[in-house]
Protein backbone atom coordinates (compact mmCIF):
# COMPACT_ATOMS: atom_id res chain seq x y z
CA UNK A 1 0.00 0.00 0.00
CA UNK A 2 2.98 2.20 -0.19
CA UNK A 3 2.10 3.10 -3.74
CA UNK A 4 -1.46 4.15 -3.18
CA UNK A 5 -2.57 5.31 0.25
CA UNK A 6 -6.07 3.98 -0.01
CA UNK A 7 -6.91 4.99 3.52
CA UNK A 8 -6.09 8.61 2.82
CA UNK A 9 -8.14 8.64 -0.32
CA UNK A 10 -11.16 7.13 1.38
CA UNK A 11 -10.74 9.45 4.34
CA UNK A 12 -10.61 12.49 2.08
CA UNK A 13 -13.64 11.33 0.10
CA UNK A 14 -15.71 10.79 3.19
CA UNK A 15 -14.53 14.05 4.67
CA UNK A 16 -15.55 16.02 1.59
CA UNK A 17 -18.89 14.26 1.42
CA UNK A 18 -19.63 15.11 5.02
CA UNK A 19 -18.25 18.61 4.67
CA UNK A 20 -20.27 19.29 1.53
CA UNK A 21 -23.45 17.91 2.98
CA UNK A 22 -22.95 19.90 6.12
CA UNK A 23 -22.44 23.06 4.10
CA UNK A 24 -25.62 22.43 2.21
CA UNK A 25 -27.55 21.97 5.41
CA UNK A 26 -25.86 25.01 6.84
CA UNK A 27 -26.90 27.06 3.84
CA UNK A 28 -30.39 25.74 4.15
CA UNK A 29 -30.48 26.60 7.78
CA UNK A 30 -29.24 30.12 7.21
CA UNK A 31 -30.92 30.87 3.94
CA UNK A 32 -34.11 29.05 4.82
CA UNK A 33 -36.71 27.47 2.63
CA UNK A 34 -39.97 29.17 1.87
CA UNK A 35 -43.03 26.97 1.91
CA UNK A 36 -45.38 28.91 -0.32
CA UNK A 37 -43.46 29.66 -3.48
CA UNK A 38 -45.58 30.46 -6.50
CA UNK A 39 -46.08 27.84 -9.19
CA UNK A 40 -44.07 29.89 -11.64
CA UNK A 41 -41.13 30.04 -9.31
CA UNK A 42 -41.29 26.36 -8.62
CA UNK A 43 -41.27 25.58 -12.31
CA UNK A 44 -38.12 24.88 -14.19
CA UNK A 45 -36.50 27.62 -16.19
CA UNK A 46 -38.13 28.64 -19.43
CA UNK A 47 -37.91 31.81 -21.39
CA UNK A 48 -41.31 33.38 -21.47
CA UNK A 49 -43.53 30.42 -22.33
CA UNK A 50 -44.97 27.65 -20.16
CA UNK A 51 -42.29 25.24 -19.07
CA UNK A 52 -41.62 22.17 -21.14
CA UNK A 53 -40.79 18.83 -19.65
CA UNK A 54 -37.41 17.43 -20.58
CA UNK A 55 -39.13 14.35 -21.98
CA UNK A 56 -40.45 16.34 -24.86
CA UNK A 57 -37.06 17.52 -25.94
CA UNK A 58 -35.38 15.43 -28.58
CA UNK A 59 -31.77 14.63 -27.96
CA UNK A 60 -29.47 13.85 -30.83
CA UNK A 61 -28.23 10.30 -30.97
CA UNK A 62 -24.82 11.77 -31.76
CA UNK A 63 -24.13 12.08 -28.06
CA UNK A 64 -24.15 8.40 -27.41
CA UNK A 65 -22.30 7.67 -30.64
CA UNK A 66 -19.56 10.01 -29.54
CA UNK A 67 -19.51 8.34 -26.16
CA UNK A 68 -19.18 4.88 -27.67
CA UNK A 69 -16.38 5.92 -29.98
CA UNK A 70 -14.75 7.60 -27.02
CA UNK A 71 -14.76 4.33 -25.07
CA UNK A 72 -13.16 2.41 -27.89
CA UNK A 73 -10.43 4.96 -28.51
CA UNK A 74 -9.92 5.49 -24.82
CA UNK A 75 -9.08 1.84 -24.36
CA UNK A 76 -6.63 1.99 -27.22
CA UNK A 77 -4.95 4.94 -25.54
CA UNK A 78 -4.91 3.14 -22.21
CA UNK A 79 -3.13 0.29 -23.94
CA UNK A 80 -0.38 2.70 -24.86
CA UNK A 81 0.38 3.50 -21.22
CA UNK A 82 2.09 0.23 -20.28
CA UNK A 83 3.92 0.45 -23.56
CA UNK A 84 5.06 3.99 -22.87
CA UNK A 85 6.24 3.19 -19.39
CA UNK A 86 8.19 0.09 -20.34
CA UNK A 87 9.46 1.45 -23.64
CA UNK A 88 12.89 2.43 -22.35
CA UNK A 89 13.27 -0.91 -20.62
CA UNK A 90 12.53 -2.68 -23.86
CA UNK A 91 15.13 -0.65 -25.66
CA UNK A 92 17.61 -1.30 -22.89
CA UNK A 93 16.96 -5.02 -23.25
CA UNK A 94 17.61 -4.85 -26.97
CA UNK A 95 13.98 -5.42 -27.83
CA UNK A 96 13.39 -1.99 -29.28
CA UNK A 97 12.66 -3.11 -32.80
CA UNK A 98 10.00 -5.75 -32.02
CA UNK A 99 8.21 -3.38 -29.67
CA UNK A 100 8.31 -0.62 -32.24
CA UNK A 101 6.86 -2.94 -34.86
CA UNK A 102 4.10 -4.33 -32.66
CA UNK A 103 3.12 -0.89 -31.44
CA UNK A 104 3.38 0.41 -34.98
CA UNK A 105 0.82 -2.16 -36.06
CA UNK A 106 -1.42 -1.18 -33.16
CA UNK A 107 -1.14 2.51 -33.90
CA UNK A 108 -1.80 1.81 -37.56
CA UNK A 109 -5.03 0.11 -36.55
CA UNK A 110 -5.82 3.08 -34.33
CA UNK A 111 -5.17 5.53 -37.15
CA UNK A 112 -7.28 3.49 -39.53
CA UNK A 113 -10.12 3.48 -37.03
CA UNK A 114 -9.88 7.21 -36.60
CA UNK A 115 -9.67 7.78 -40.32
CA UNK A 116 -12.66 5.55 -40.85
CA UNK A 117 -14.61 7.36 -38.18
CA UNK A 118 -13.91 10.67 -39.85
CA UNK A 119 -14.64 9.31 -43.31
CA UNK A 120 -17.93 7.72 -42.30
CA UNK A 121 -19.03 11.09 -40.94
CA UNK A 122 -19.76 9.52 -37.56
CA UNK A 123 -17.97 12.44 -35.97
CA UNK A 124 -19.79 15.16 -37.84
CA UNK A 125 -21.93 17.57 -35.86
CA UNK A 126 -24.19 19.58 -38.00
Amino acid at each position, binding site marked *: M*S*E*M*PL*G*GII*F*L*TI*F*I*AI*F*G*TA*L*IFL*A*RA*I*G*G*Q*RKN*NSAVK*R*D*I*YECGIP*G*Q*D*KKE*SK*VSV*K*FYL*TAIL*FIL*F*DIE*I*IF*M*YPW*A*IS*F*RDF*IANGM*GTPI*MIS*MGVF*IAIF*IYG*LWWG*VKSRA*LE*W*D
Partner: protein
Amino acid sequence: MGNDVFEITVNAVKLIVVFLLMVQAVPILVWLERRGSAFIQNRFGPNRVGPLGLLQLLADAVKFITKEDFAPDKAIRKLFYAAPVFALIPATLAYAAIPMSLPFMVPAFEMLGSTWGPYTFRVQGYEIGVGIVFILGVSSLAAYTILMAGWGSGSKFSLLGALRAAAQVISYELALGLSIVGVILLYGTFNLTEMIQAQQGPLQFTAFGHTITSAVSWIPNWGIFYQPIGFLLFFAAAFAESNRLPFDLAEGEAELVAGFHTEYGGFKMLMFFIGEYGHMMIASGLATTFFFGGYGIPGITPDELQQIILGWGFSEAGAGGLNSLIHFLSYNVKFAIFLWIFIQVRWTLPRFRYDQLMDLGWKTMLPWALANTIATAVIIYAVS
Protein backbone atom coordinates in the same frame (compact mmCIF):
# COMPACT_ATOMS: atom_id res chain seq x y z
CA MET B 1 -1.50 6.59 6.00
CA GLY B 2 1.13 6.11 8.55
CA ASN B 3 2.55 3.86 11.16
CA ASP B 4 1.57 5.60 14.36
CA VAL B 5 -0.97 8.01 15.73
CA PHE B 6 1.15 11.08 15.15
CA GLU B 7 1.83 10.36 11.50
CA ILE B 8 -1.75 9.44 10.83
CA THR B 9 -2.98 12.59 12.46
CA VAL B 10 -0.57 14.77 10.57
CA ASN B 11 -1.48 13.14 7.30
CA ALA B 12 -5.18 13.50 7.94
CA VAL B 13 -4.75 17.14 8.84
CA LYS B 14 -2.61 17.58 5.76
CA LEU B 15 -5.39 16.18 3.57
CA ILE B 16 -7.92 18.52 5.09
CA VAL B 17 -5.53 21.42 4.65
CA VAL B 18 -5.04 20.56 1.00
CA PHE B 19 -8.78 20.50 0.56
CA LEU B 20 -9.22 23.80 2.31
CA LEU B 21 -6.35 25.24 0.32
CA MET B 22 -8.26 24.41 -2.79
CA VAL B 23 -11.54 25.72 -1.46
CA GLN B 24 -10.13 29.00 -0.23
CA ALA B 25 -8.34 29.55 -3.50
CA VAL B 26 -11.67 29.76 -5.27
CA PRO B 27 -12.88 33.10 -3.90
CA ILE B 28 -9.45 34.57 -4.58
CA LEU B 29 -9.61 33.31 -8.11
CA VAL B 30 -13.11 34.65 -8.54
CA TRP B 31 -11.96 38.02 -7.37
CA LEU B 32 -8.89 37.83 -9.57
CA GLU B 33 -11.00 36.89 -12.51
CA ARG B 34 -13.44 39.72 -11.99
CA ARG B 35 -10.73 42.28 -11.48
CA GLY B 36 -8.65 40.82 -14.25
CA SER B 37 -11.48 40.78 -16.72
CA ALA B 38 -12.34 44.31 -15.80
CA PHE B 39 -8.71 45.28 -16.39
CA ILE B 40 -8.74 43.55 -19.76
CA GLN B 41 -12.00 45.17 -20.72
CA ASN B 42 -11.10 48.60 -19.43
CA ARG B 43 -13.55 48.53 -16.53
CA PHE B 44 -13.12 48.78 -12.77
CA GLY B 45 -14.62 45.56 -11.55
CA PRO B 46 -15.55 45.07 -7.88
CA ASN B 47 -13.74 47.81 -6.01
CA ARG B 48 -16.12 48.97 -3.31
CA VAL B 49 -15.80 46.45 -0.53
CA GLY B 50 -12.48 46.83 1.21
CA PRO B 51 -9.16 47.81 -0.30
CA LEU B 52 -9.07 46.95 -4.02
CA GLY B 53 -12.39 45.24 -3.45
CA LEU B 54 -10.61 42.43 -1.68
CA LEU B 55 -13.35 42.03 0.87
CA GLN B 56 -15.71 41.29 -1.98
CA LEU B 57 -14.73 37.68 -1.30
CA LEU B 58 -16.34 37.80 2.09
CA ALA B 59 -19.35 39.61 0.82
CA ASP B 60 -19.82 36.97 -1.86
CA ALA B 61 -19.54 34.19 0.69
CA VAL B 62 -22.13 35.81 2.88
CA LYS B 63 -24.41 36.31 -0.07
CA PHE B 64 -24.09 32.69 -1.15
CA ILE B 65 -24.79 31.26 2.23
CA THR B 66 -27.78 33.44 2.96
CA LYS B 67 -29.56 32.65 -0.27
CA GLU B 68 -32.76 30.72 -0.17
CA ASP B 69 -32.27 26.98 -0.64
CA PHE B 70 -34.46 26.16 -3.54
CA ALA B 71 -35.28 23.26 -5.84
CA PRO B 72 -37.80 23.26 -8.68
CA ASP B 73 -40.80 20.93 -8.49
CA LYS B 74 -39.71 18.77 -11.36
CA ALA B 75 -36.25 18.22 -9.92
CA ILE B 76 -35.25 14.83 -8.64
CA ARG B 77 -34.25 15.99 -5.24
CA LYS B 78 -31.79 13.28 -4.31
CA LEU B 79 -29.69 13.84 -7.40
CA PHE B 80 -30.23 17.55 -7.37
CA TYR B 81 -28.70 17.90 -3.92
CA ALA B 82 -26.08 15.18 -4.29
CA ALA B 83 -24.56 16.56 -7.50
CA PRO B 84 -22.86 19.66 -6.02
CA VAL B 85 -21.38 17.63 -3.18
CA PHE B 86 -19.99 15.12 -5.63
CA ALA B 87 -18.59 17.95 -7.73
CA LEU B 88 -16.03 18.58 -5.00
CA ILE B 89 -14.74 15.04 -4.74
CA PRO B 90 -12.95 14.32 -8.04
CA ALA B 91 -11.28 17.69 -8.13
CA THR B 92 -10.00 17.43 -4.58
CA LEU B 93 -8.87 13.83 -4.91
CA ALA B 94 -6.89 14.65 -8.01
CA TYR B 95 -5.47 17.88 -6.65
CA ALA B 96 -4.25 16.15 -3.51
CA ALA B 97 -2.03 13.89 -5.62
CA ILE B 98 0.04 16.74 -7.07
CA PRO B 99 3.31 17.32 -5.24
CA MET B 100 3.70 20.94 -4.24
CA SER B 101 7.11 20.96 -2.67
CA LEU B 102 10.02 18.92 -1.38
CA PRO B 103 9.12 16.52 1.39
CA PHE B 104 10.38 17.73 4.74
CA MET B 105 11.95 15.56 7.37
CA VAL B 106 10.95 15.65 10.99
CA PRO B 107 13.74 14.22 13.13
CA ALA B 108 12.97 11.86 15.98
CA PHE B 109 11.68 13.64 19.08
CA GLU B 110 10.32 12.89 22.51
CA MET B 111 6.68 13.45 23.27
CA LEU B 112 4.38 12.06 25.96
CA GLY B 113 7.14 9.87 27.23
CA SER B 114 7.94 7.99 24.07
CA THR B 115 10.11 8.51 21.02
CA TRP B 116 8.38 9.47 17.79
CA GLY B 117 9.72 9.51 14.31
CA PRO B 118 11.73 10.23 12.41
CA TYR B 119 9.14 11.12 9.79
CA THR B 120 9.09 12.32 6.24
CA PHE B 121 6.06 14.34 5.26
CA ARG B 122 5.32 15.10 1.67
CA VAL B 123 3.90 18.48 0.77
CA GLN B 124 0.94 17.01 -1.04
CA GLY B 125 -2.17 15.10 -0.04
CA TYR B 126 -0.69 11.72 -0.76
CA GLU B 127 2.01 10.22 -2.88
CA ILE B 128 0.70 7.85 -5.53
CA GLY B 129 2.86 5.47 -7.52
CA VAL B 130 0.70 5.54 -10.63
CA GLY B 131 0.02 9.23 -10.22
CA ILE B 132 -1.04 10.15 -13.75
CA VAL B 133 -3.35 7.20 -14.10
CA PHE B 134 -4.94 7.95 -10.77
CA ILE B 135 -5.50 11.60 -11.63
CA LEU B 136 -6.95 10.76 -15.03
CA GLY B 137 -9.19 8.12 -13.52
CA VAL B 138 -10.47 10.33 -10.74
CA SER B 139 -11.06 13.34 -12.93
CA SER B 140 -12.98 11.20 -15.44
CA LEU B 141 -15.50 10.72 -12.65
CA ALA B 142 -16.40 14.39 -12.97
CA ALA B 143 -18.74 13.49 -15.82
CA TYR B 144 -21.14 11.94 -13.29
CA THR B 145 -21.50 15.21 -11.46
CA ILE B 146 -22.48 16.93 -14.65
CA LEU B 147 -24.92 14.22 -15.66
CA MET B 148 -26.44 13.99 -12.20
CA ALA B 149 -26.97 17.73 -12.08
CA GLY B 150 -28.39 17.83 -15.58
CA TRP B 151 -30.75 14.97 -14.98
CA GLY B 152 -31.64 15.93 -11.46
CA SER B 153 -32.73 19.42 -12.42
CA GLY B 154 -35.56 18.07 -14.52
CA SER B 155 -35.08 20.81 -17.05
CA LYS B 156 -34.40 20.27 -20.72
CA PHE B 157 -31.78 23.00 -20.72
CA SER B 158 -29.95 21.32 -17.92
CA LEU B 159 -30.13 17.92 -19.56
CA LEU B 160 -28.94 19.19 -22.92
CA GLY B 161 -26.20 21.16 -21.27
CA ALA B 162 -25.14 18.16 -19.27
CA LEU B 163 -25.05 15.88 -22.30
CA ARG B 164 -23.08 18.44 -24.23
CA ALA B 165 -20.68 18.97 -21.40
CA ALA B 166 -20.24 15.25 -20.88
CA ALA B 167 -19.66 14.61 -24.58
CA GLN B 168 -17.17 17.45 -24.67
CA VAL B 169 -15.34 16.33 -21.56
CA ILE B 170 -14.95 12.78 -22.74
CA SER B 171 -13.96 13.86 -26.26
CA TYR B 172 -11.13 15.94 -24.93
CA GLU B 173 -10.15 13.29 -22.47
CA LEU B 174 -8.86 11.34 -25.46
CA ALA B 175 -6.56 14.14 -26.55
CA LEU B 176 -5.56 14.73 -22.96
CA GLY B 177 -4.77 11.09 -22.34
CA LEU B 178 -2.85 10.78 -25.56
CA SER B 179 -0.84 13.95 -25.09
CA ILE B 180 0.43 12.52 -21.82
CA VAL B 181 1.76 9.38 -23.50
CA GLY B 182 4.65 11.43 -24.84
CA VAL B 183 5.40 12.60 -21.30
CA ILE B 184 5.34 9.05 -19.99
CA LEU B 185 7.63 7.95 -22.79
CA LEU B 186 9.98 10.74 -21.86
CA TYR B 187 10.21 10.03 -18.14
CA GLY B 188 9.38 6.33 -18.10
CA THR B 189 7.26 6.64 -14.99
CA PHE B 190 3.73 7.47 -13.85
CA ASN B 191 4.94 9.03 -10.65
CA LEU B 192 4.79 12.81 -10.52
CA THR B 193 7.58 13.21 -7.99
CA GLU B 194 9.94 11.14 -10.12
CA MET B 195 9.04 13.29 -13.09
CA ILE B 196 9.94 16.43 -11.17
CA GLN B 197 13.21 14.87 -10.10
CA ALA B 198 13.98 14.03 -13.72
CA GLN B 199 13.56 17.72 -14.59
CA GLN B 200 16.09 19.03 -12.11
CA GLY B 201 19.44 20.35 -13.21
CA PRO B 202 20.46 22.08 -16.42
CA LEU B 203 19.05 21.13 -19.81
CA GLN B 204 20.80 18.14 -21.29
CA PHE B 205 20.13 15.83 -24.17
CA THR B 206 21.29 12.27 -24.23
CA ALA B 207 21.77 10.89 -27.71
CA PHE B 208 23.69 7.89 -28.97
CA GLY B 209 25.32 7.47 -25.61
CA HIS B 210 26.66 11.03 -25.45
CA THR B 211 25.29 13.64 -23.13
CA ILE B 212 25.11 17.16 -24.45
CA THR B 213 24.68 19.70 -21.70
CA SER B 214 23.24 23.08 -22.51
CA ALA B 215 25.81 25.82 -22.77
CA VAL B 216 23.67 28.16 -20.67
CA SER B 217 23.60 26.48 -17.33
CA TRP B 218 20.52 28.19 -15.91
CA ILE B 219 18.19 26.78 -18.59
CA PRO B 220 16.39 24.07 -16.68
CA ASN B 221 15.91 20.51 -17.86
CA TRP B 222 12.16 21.00 -18.25
CA GLY B 223 9.77 18.86 -20.19
CA ILE B 224 8.63 21.79 -22.31
CA PHE B 225 11.88 21.58 -24.24
CA TYR B 226 11.25 17.94 -25.11
CA GLN B 227 7.50 18.03 -25.55
CA PRO B 228 6.43 21.43 -26.88
CA ILE B 229 3.59 19.99 -28.94
CA GLY B 230 2.62 17.76 -26.07
CA PHE B 231 2.39 20.79 -23.82
CA LEU B 232 0.21 22.75 -26.23
CA LEU B 233 -2.13 19.81 -26.70
CA PHE B 234 -2.26 19.08 -23.02
CA PHE B 235 -3.02 22.63 -22.11
CA ALA B 236 -5.70 23.06 -24.76
CA ALA B 237 -7.34 19.78 -23.77
CA ALA B 238 -7.20 20.85 -20.15
CA PHE B 239 -9.11 24.02 -21.07
CA ALA B 240 -11.83 21.90 -22.61
CA GLU B 241 -11.80 19.47 -19.71
CA SER B 242 -12.51 22.24 -17.24
CA ASN B 243 -15.28 23.66 -19.46
CA ARG B 244 -13.63 27.05 -19.66
CA LEU B 245 -13.88 29.51 -22.45
CA PRO B 246 -13.28 29.16 -25.34
CA PHE B 247 -14.67 25.71 -24.73
CA ASP B 248 -17.58 26.46 -22.40
CA LEU B 249 -20.17 25.20 -24.83
CA ALA B 250 -22.05 23.55 -22.01
CA GLU B 251 -23.30 26.93 -20.94
CA GLY B 252 -23.74 28.84 -24.15
CA GLU B 253 -26.07 31.54 -22.84
CA ALA B 254 -27.97 32.03 -26.07
CA GLU B 255 -28.97 28.40 -26.46
CA LEU B 256 -28.67 26.68 -23.12
CA VAL B 257 -29.00 29.49 -20.57
CA ALA B 258 -26.35 28.27 -18.15
CA GLY B 259 -25.95 24.62 -19.06
CA PHE B 260 -26.26 21.89 -16.51
CA HIS B 261 -26.45 24.28 -13.53
CA THR B 262 -29.28 26.36 -14.91
CA GLU B 263 -31.51 25.49 -11.97
CA TYR B 264 -28.86 25.93 -9.31
CA GLY B 265 -28.34 28.88 -7.12
CA GLY B 266 -26.85 29.87 -3.83
CA PHE B 267 -24.42 27.59 -2.11
CA LYS B 268 -24.93 24.66 -4.43
CA MET B 269 -23.86 26.86 -7.29
CA LEU B 270 -20.74 27.81 -5.37
CA MET B 271 -19.84 24.15 -5.03
CA PHE B 272 -19.97 23.71 -8.77
CA PHE B 273 -17.76 26.74 -8.98
CA ILE B 274 -15.30 25.13 -6.65
CA GLY B 275 -15.33 22.00 -8.75
CA GLU B 276 -14.75 23.96 -11.93
CA TYR B 277 -11.94 26.03 -10.50
CA GLY B 278 -10.58 22.84 -9.00
CA HIS B 279 -10.21 21.40 -12.48
CA MET B 280 -8.46 24.55 -13.53
CA MET B 281 -6.07 24.15 -10.66
CA ILE B 282 -5.41 20.51 -11.46
CA ALA B 283 -4.67 21.43 -15.04
CA SER B 284 -2.30 24.18 -13.94
CA GLY B 285 -0.63 21.92 -11.41
CA LEU B 286 -0.19 19.11 -13.90
CA ALA B 287 1.14 21.42 -16.60
CA THR B 288 3.64 22.73 -14.08
CA THR B 289 4.61 19.23 -13.06
CA PHE B 290 4.88 17.71 -16.53
CA PHE B 291 6.48 20.51 -18.43
CA PHE B 292 7.87 23.13 -16.07
CA GLY B 293 9.76 21.23 -13.46
CA GLY B 294 7.09 21.19 -10.77
CA TYR B 295 8.38 22.84 -7.63
CA GLY B 296 11.93 22.95 -8.97
CA ILE B 297 13.76 26.25 -9.24
CA PRO B 298 15.66 26.94 -12.48
CA GLY B 299 19.40 27.02 -12.13
CA ILE B 300 19.62 25.34 -8.76
CA THR B 301 18.86 21.85 -7.53
CA PRO B 302 17.23 21.23 -4.14
CA ASP B 303 20.45 19.76 -2.78
CA GLU B 304 22.47 22.84 -3.72
CA LEU B 305 19.85 25.07 -2.16
CA GLN B 306 19.94 22.96 0.98
CA GLN B 307 23.70 23.49 1.22
CA ILE B 308 23.28 27.22 0.77
CA ILE B 309 20.65 27.40 3.49
CA LEU B 310 22.80 25.33 5.79
CA GLY B 311 25.52 27.86 5.17
CA TRP B 312 23.22 30.49 6.69
CA GLY B 313 23.45 28.69 9.97
CA PHE B 314 20.22 26.70 10.14
CA SER B 315 19.96 23.27 11.69
CA GLU B 316 19.49 20.32 9.37
CA ALA B 317 15.75 20.12 10.04
CA GLY B 318 15.24 23.86 9.90
CA ALA B 319 17.09 24.13 6.62
CA GLY B 320 14.95 21.29 5.23
CA GLY B 321 11.81 23.13 6.27
CA LEU B 322 12.96 26.40 4.75
CA ASN B 323 14.00 24.59 1.61
CA SER B 324 10.53 23.08 1.35
CA LEU B 325 8.99 26.45 1.85
CA ILE B 326 11.07 28.06 -0.88
CA HIS B 327 10.17 25.30 -3.28
CA PHE B 328 6.55 25.60 -2.33
CA LEU B 329 6.71 29.27 -3.28
CA SER B 330 8.41 28.34 -6.56
CA TYR B 331 5.61 25.91 -7.31
CA ASN B 332 2.98 28.47 -6.49
CA VAL B 333 4.53 31.09 -8.74
CA LYS B 334 4.37 28.76 -11.74
CA PHE B 335 0.94 27.58 -10.67
CA ALA B 336 -0.36 31.15 -10.46
CA ILE B 337 1.03 32.01 -13.87
CA PHE B 338 -0.96 29.18 -15.39
CA LEU B 339 -4.08 30.18 -13.55
CA TRP B 340 -3.66 33.69 -14.88
CA ILE B 341 -3.29 32.30 -18.39
CA PHE B 342 -6.58 30.51 -17.89
CA ILE B 343 -8.25 33.75 -16.93
CA GLN B 344 -6.57 35.77 -19.62
CA VAL B 345 -7.62 33.29 -22.31
CA ARG B 346 -11.17 33.27 -21.07
CA TRP B 347 -11.49 36.98 -21.55
CA THR B 348 -9.58 37.11 -24.80
CA LEU B 349 -10.89 34.40 -27.07
CA PRO B 350 -14.44 34.00 -28.38
CA ARG B 351 -16.39 30.82 -27.93
CA PHE B 352 -16.27 27.97 -30.43
CA ARG B 353 -19.31 26.57 -32.16
CA TYR B 354 -20.19 23.06 -30.97
CA ASP B 355 -19.29 21.35 -34.24
CA GLN B 356 -16.02 23.29 -34.37
CA LEU B 357 -15.33 22.14 -30.86
CA MET B 358 -15.87 18.48 -31.61
CA ASP B 359 -13.93 18.75 -34.86
CA LEU B 360 -11.06 20.34 -33.02
CA GLY B 361 -11.03 17.55 -30.45
CA TRP B 362 -11.42 14.56 -32.75
CA LYS B 363 -9.96 15.65 -36.02
CA THR B 364 -7.19 18.01 -35.02
CA MET B 365 -5.96 17.42 -31.52
CA LEU B 366 -6.26 13.65 -31.49
CA PRO B 367 -4.21 13.19 -34.70
CA TRP B 368 -1.64 15.70 -33.51
CA ALA B 369 -1.36 13.98 -30.17
CA LEU B 370 -0.93 10.69 -31.98
CA ALA B 371 1.76 12.18 -34.20
CA ASN B 372 3.47 13.57 -31.13
CA THR B 373 3.44 10.15 -29.52
CA ILE B 374 4.85 8.46 -32.59
CA ALA B 375 7.51 11.12 -33.06
CA THR B 376 8.55 10.88 -29.42
CA ALA B 377 8.80 7.11 -29.58
CA VAL B 378 10.75 7.16 -32.82
CA ILE B 379 13.20 9.75 -31.54
CA ILE B 380 13.73 7.92 -28.28
CA TYR B 381 14.24 4.72 -30.24
CA ALA B 382 16.56 6.37 -32.70
CA VAL B 383 18.85 8.12 -30.26
CA SER B 384 19.34 5.20 -27.89
